[in-house]
């Protein structure tokens, strides 16, 4: 993402628990219709549609028409770009050590 606008849209899209849930749902099972996604969402159909529009504008999902149906697919390419831009370059080894420490401390009876 070279453009600031793209990056803003991406982080904004991720800054909502409902939209993150939609990404998790697609990660678990890709290529779902609006109806299939609504079954797992505690909100109106209109609400889900709006969230899907924001995710599509941020390029986090791709929508493919198949006959009369619109199928939604998770598009992880922008997440990879966030990873490279915001995670990989910031001292990977130390982050890894911290993650391990957190994991050990949070383990029950650990």
């Amino acid at each position: 993402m070279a453009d600031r606008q793209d990056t803003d849209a991406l982080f904004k899209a991720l800054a909502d628990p409902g939209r993150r849930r939609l990404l998790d749902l697609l990660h678990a099972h890709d290529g779902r219709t609006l109806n299939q996604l609504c079954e797992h969402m505690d909100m109106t159909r209109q609400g889900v549609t709006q969230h899907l529009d924001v995710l599509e504008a941020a390029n986090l999902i791709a929508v493919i028409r198949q006959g009369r149906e619109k199928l939604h697919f998770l598009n992880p390419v922008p997440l990879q770009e966030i990873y490279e831009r915001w995670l990989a370059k910031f001292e990977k080894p130390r982050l890894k050590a911290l993650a391990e420490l957190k994991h050990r401390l949070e383990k029950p009876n650990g």
Partner: protein
Amino acid sequence: MARSTFVYVTYIRTTQERLWSALTEREFMKQWWFGNYCESTWLAGGLWKNVYPDGRISDSGEIVEADPPRRLVIRWRHLDEPELAAEGDSYCTMEVEPFGTAVKLSITHTVEREPSRLITALSGGWPKVLSNLKSLLETGSATMNEPYPAAAPR
């Protein structure tokens, strides 16, 4: 029949022609595909193969449709790992569309079975490869030049 698919989309500030070259020219490909490259005539009916940096063939098949610089459909069969090879033919469609000052690249890979280990294996590496392709075309250098990562498309 059940079907497994992934769809990856990236927007790249380049032209359709330049992106088409990046997708079809051997030396160009090596720069963003971690040393991998494909060989083909890039004409419908032509044979196609995907070659590892060490020369072993990872996948082979044929060009089903070619409409430069817009659309490419490849019949894609994995050869290297027996479990994935057993799944047979899959189809990879690459579409290159103008989008404002950029170009939209969509890659759809489908196999007629569900679940598919091939689709899972291929999907792991594409985001890295596409992100590399985008930075190469936009900035002139690939983000990652490390040896071929274990999870990349094969």
